[in-house]
């Protein structure tokens, strides 16, 4: 069953088109992340689902019903705001009971639901406190409690973790995910943090300048980005994009980086390369973990899907778990991610192996991935 459907939804603020032709579906019970750079329209789209912004074009369906003309309270959605938007003059309990009071539930039922929500979120000991006496993480939980007492069809979250410190953010991430598993309710979660989207969501919708760039599972977006924008947005450190052309050199297909020497492309890799005409500008996209050092990679010797490149180390960053090497390639710099420790320093000249079977080709003009 499908819970939320966007049918060529659009929005203008004054003369500027903020959202254009948004089309995707959110299956019931799914956890969806809306992700994109600042100002791309994520909040606006979420607020259109909630009924806080007018839907200028197209329709939004919730549970099979077009909600364009429904008031927020009739859409059966709950929203957790970035600043939590708790009622400052009400206690935690009153904050959660407010919606039930508005719905004229009986006192007994309201209290049951409120206690249930408090139990799920660990708020039992805070029920008499006012929001100003709560920490950021506690306010966050109250905001979620206020949403779950209603048992809505859809939960909307607008960057709920962005006001928390790094540690609490990781903790709340897990908590929200557990909440989703427990309640099984459809959740739409806005974030500009790709790590949040990747770790929490079952489906990611990536927006840029008011358009949907790609919809898919986190790994689909990671492994098969439809264009350069998605490739660059998802993943950290970001994918290396090496500009160049594909040429035939003595009967073999070679990738010729800008200002660089040709690298033979192993047969059977880079299916997109054959679609690029000779001399046409494109980008070779390769994630940092798909570049290795010959001696280190255990399965690099036998396979024939590697290309070699020699580059000078510019910067070495160690996280303890792994090592990031930034090296100067012919066309700008490339980042290499090595699992474990590796002893090298700026100035060293190393030979790197590019795993072509995990690389992508993007058209330089359209930005689309070719394969």
């Amino acid at each position, binding site marked *: 069953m499908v819970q939320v459907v966007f049918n060529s939804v659009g929005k203008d603020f004054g003369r500027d088109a903020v959202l254009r032709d948004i089309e995707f579906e959110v299956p019931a019970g799914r956890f969806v992340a809306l992700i994109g750079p600042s100002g791309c329209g994520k909040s606006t789209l979420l607020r259109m689902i909630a009924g806080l912004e007018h839907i200028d074009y197209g329709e939004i369906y919730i549970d099979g019903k077009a909600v364009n003309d429904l008031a927020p309270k009739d859409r059966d959605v709950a929203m957790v705001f970035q600043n939590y938007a*708790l*009622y*400052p*003059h009400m206690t935690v309990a009153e904050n959660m009971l407010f919606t039930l009071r508005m719905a004229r539930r009986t006192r007994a039922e309201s209290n049951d639901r409120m206690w249930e929500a408090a139990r799920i979120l660990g708020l039992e000991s805070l029920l008499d406190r006012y929001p*100003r006496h709560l920490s950021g993480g506690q306010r966050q939980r109250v905001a979620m409690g206020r949403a779950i007492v209603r048992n809505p069809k859809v939960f909307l979250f607008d960057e709920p973790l962005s006001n928390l410190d790094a540690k609490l953010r990781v903790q709340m991430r897990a908590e929200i995910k557990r909440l989703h598993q427990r309640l099984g309710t459809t959740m739409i979660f806005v974030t500009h943090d790709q790590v949040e989207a990747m770790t929490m969501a079952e489906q990611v919708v990536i927006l840029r300048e008011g358009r949907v760039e790609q919809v898919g599972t986190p790994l689909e977006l990671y492994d098969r980005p439809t264009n350069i924008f998605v490739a660059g947005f998802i993943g950290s450190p970001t994918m290396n994009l090496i500009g160049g052309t594909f040429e035939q050199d003595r009967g073999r297909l070679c990738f010729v980086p800008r200002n660089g020497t040709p690298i033979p492309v192993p047969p059977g890799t880079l299916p997109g390369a054959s679609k690029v005409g000779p001399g046409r500008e494109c980008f070779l996209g390769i994630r940092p973990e798909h570049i290795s050092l010959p001696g280190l990679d255990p399965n690099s010797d036998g396979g024939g899907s590697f290309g070699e490149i020699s580059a000078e180390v510019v910067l070495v960053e160690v996280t303890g778990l792994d090592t990031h090497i930034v090296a100067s390639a012919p066309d700008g710099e490339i980042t290499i991610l090595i699992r474990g420790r590796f002893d090298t320093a700026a100035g060293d000249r190393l030979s790197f192996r590019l795993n072509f079977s995990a690389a992508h080709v993007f058209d330089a003009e359209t930005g689309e991935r070719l394969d």
Partner: protein
Amino acid sequence: MAFSSAKSARRDRRAPRLKFRDERIFYYVALGPTAVVIAFVIALPIIYTFGLGFFVQNTLIRTWRFVGLSNYIDLLTDADFWFAFWNGIVFTVGSTAVATVFGLAIAILLDCNFRGRGPLRALVIFPYIVPSIVVAFIWKFIFSGRGILNDFLGFIGAQAVSVPWLGDQRFAMMAVVLISAWTWFPFAAITLLAAIQNVPDSIYEAAALDGAGPAKRFIHLTLPLLAPALMVVVLIRAIWAFRNYDMIWLLTEGGPIGATEVLPIMAYKEAFGLFRMGHASAVSVSLMVFVTLLAAVHFRVGARLRKAYDTS
């Protein structure tokens, strides 16, 4: 070793104290002149007024006769005093209520998004900045027997009305209340607008999603969240109104037949009409007591509300 460390500890303890003393001296020096000026221009007149209340004084031949509390006893048994007191209450409650309710309505209106909001906001200030003498002139003209109001009433009622609103014992107080509220609603509107805009929109949006319609949002969010600001507006206004003199004097001089006579006007008339300085100062002192009580309420309630409704 032990000796020297004890000695240095003592010096350490003394050093900040000396510094503190220096600071205190600095405060006294800095505040001294101001305190002297305040004593002369505020404290002395107040003490003088208090003292005056215990004497019968003749300003013409400059004689003072101590009469103890008899000025106050005269006053408290004087029906005119209680009538003026009651008028003050009516004027205060009436004009405060009208100005606050109207100001709140305007503030809510100005908070909405619509074309021409900017100019309207500027326009709303207008009654507040017009000097009271001009306000009085305008409204006397409107409310006079053959004024615009009666023309208008005659027009819609198709029948001539010629009540001189400010000169009619039945309507004078009501007219004065409305005019005074008119001069003051902008203050309420601007103060409340600032308070309204202090409430994040997202709280209202959350309430809308929680199922509260506009009326419920007004009752459950706007009013309680504005309570501190409303309280400040009401009490400042009440204090101001209870001791207001100029507007009523300019409009009616307390008439007709005392219908709008309030304590400040009574004090003025006692002092400069009847030259009964003792009575006048007794009226002033009792007025001061009431106003001080109001101010005390203002500070108490204000502090408590600020604590309870801290939205940060």
